[in-house]
């Protein structure tokens, strides 16, 4: 999946903040400071629809904070961002998820004392039985049955079907990553935002997770993911965005970004010990 094989990015210059032909997400002037520390200061970033975009950068670059701002888990000091032309700044986290921008977390949030099946069923959008009146009066069972079928198909696809009645709390770390991704898909995202989907996952599962990410894109969703492992990012992404010290310092096709001296500087120069030790 190199840039050469991604026609969507033909003619897009590898410059920070460059406009994309068909962006699903456009962020401008997004800023967030913690005390004196400016954690995020993104002048402009566009995410191309239907692509896999990798977001990389050294520790403390502001990647997760940027995710938190976009998804309503933290409040930005300034800036606007539009999802499919719709302004999302100031929206709360559940409102962001409902318009189709669904995220996962770096530290996996499996719902431990819910079964795997319930973890997925929870994510289905627009459930009648989730309203108090609807729950009392009934009439949600047909919808629930349809959701159950979808959930079971997803669990099958992610290799978790044999465990569907088990508590999610009994899963291993890697299985939790799979569950969280399956659960996010159950929410029918148009933009799936994965925060370090490979962290702490063994190599065998890693391959399967990568295949799933490719598949999600094939099915028409857009994927934006944060990742530390450069090999994964370079091998999977259509486009790579690099953040350092809160700013977007480079973006472009994987090969071009990998050779960018400023990126190498950001990774190896200022963060050499961590990059080598990771």
């Amino acid at each position, binding site marked *: 999946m190199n840039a050469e094989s991604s026609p969507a990015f033909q003619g897009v210059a590898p410059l920070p903040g460059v406009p994309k032909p068909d962006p699903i997400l456009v962020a401008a002037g997004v800023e967030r400071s913690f005390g004196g520390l400016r954690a995020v200061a993104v002048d402009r970033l566009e995410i191309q629809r239907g692509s896999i975009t990798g977001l990389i950068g050294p520790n403390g670059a502001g990647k997760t904070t940027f995710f938190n701002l976009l*998804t*309503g*888990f933290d409040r930005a000091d300034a800036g606007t961002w539009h999802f499919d032309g719709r302004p999302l700044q100031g929206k*709360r*986290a*559940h*409102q962001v*998820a*409902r318009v189709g921008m*669904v*995220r*996962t*977390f770096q530290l996996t*949030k*499996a*719902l*431990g*004392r*819910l079964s795997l099946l*319930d973890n997925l*069923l*929870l*994510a289905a*959008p627009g*459930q*009648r*039985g*989730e*309203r*108090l009146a*609807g*729950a*009392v009066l009934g009439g*949600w069972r047909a919808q*629930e049955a349809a959701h159950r079928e979808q959930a079971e198909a997803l669990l099958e696809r992610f290799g978790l079907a044999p465990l569907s009645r088990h*508590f999610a*709390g*009994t899963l291993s770390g890697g299985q939790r990553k799979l569950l969280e991704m399956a*659960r*996010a898909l159950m*929410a029918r995202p148009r933009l799936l935002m994965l925060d370090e989907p490979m962290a702490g996952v063994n190599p065998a599962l890693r391959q399967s997770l990568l295949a799933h990410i490719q598949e999600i894109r094939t099915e028409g969703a857009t994927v934006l993911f944060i990742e530390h492992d450069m090999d994964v990012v370079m091998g999977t992404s259509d486009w790579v965005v690099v953040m350092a010290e809160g700013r977007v310092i480079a973006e472009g096709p994987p090969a071009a970004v990998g050779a960018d001296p400023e990126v190498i500087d950001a990774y190896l120069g200022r963060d050499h010990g961590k990059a080598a030790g990771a």
Partner: protein
Amino acid sequence: MDLVKILTDSLRAAIGVPAAAYALAATGLNVHFGYTGLLNFGQVAFMLVGAYGTAVTVNEGGPLWLGLLVGIGLAVALGLLLGIPTLRLRADYLAIVTIATAEILRYVTRSRALQSLTGGVFGIQKFANPFFDLNPIPPGRYGFGTFNFSHRQLWVMAVGWLTVGLILLLLTVLLRSPWGRVLKAIREDEDAARSLGKNVFAYKIQSLILGGVIGALAGMLLAIDTQAVNPDTFISILTFFAYTVLILGGPGRILAPVVGAVIFWFLLQFTDGVLRGALEAGWLGSAIEGNEVAAIRFALVGLGLMLLMILRPQGILGSREELLTDER
């Protein structure tokens, strides 16, 4: 020591009106704590507004049904009042605010300024006559030997346990629905629920109000049974008895409050009976006196609870697997 009498007294306590009321109060806490993960340390405040809402309305000349509605309405208002400022904050804030509110409400009801309405420190008596006028059971005592109840007790017990049954039925429907699934998801991790499009705040408010109204029903039941409300009945220890009942049964289980309340009241009455019996028989010498029995039985019940937490930390109905899962 008459062991048969001690046992029948204990059984009477186990199915009596206070047990039903505690089961209701604990059921409300089960919605809060067992299913949503909310730490409400002021359940007694909901009981108080339920009891006083009924007593004051009837005392002012209103019909009983209106009194019950007023009690429920006050519980809804209290839920909103407590929830709106605190439920967006971390869990511990709700705990602090609820326990403080319960004490404030008690002081307000016993204040001189409101004495014409609430009766101040004297409370209100004899307001539940319309309830007892509805009693279809002919006067007399019913039961076997010393295990018997008056027609009056039976009537309150019947209504009390029927209420418990109906509430548990409603909760079974609710908690097995997608609505209940969202509550449990919030208990497990509210950020995960948010990331999947659930309005966590709205669900927490609903949970707080629902559990609070159930707590108000518990307060009404206690008030009607004794035909009296008094501010000093509604002290914070009542909240913690309700928690004891819930944890005894196993939080997150529909039937836990019933099992917990029955055992709690049985043990309380049983230790009381045994201690008094032993005292009368002179077995305890001069180690304790009669007026110390009440305190010592609570110490013994506390000891029993400690043993339960060591041997069966998930409660009587809880599952060990679930408890271990929780530890991650």
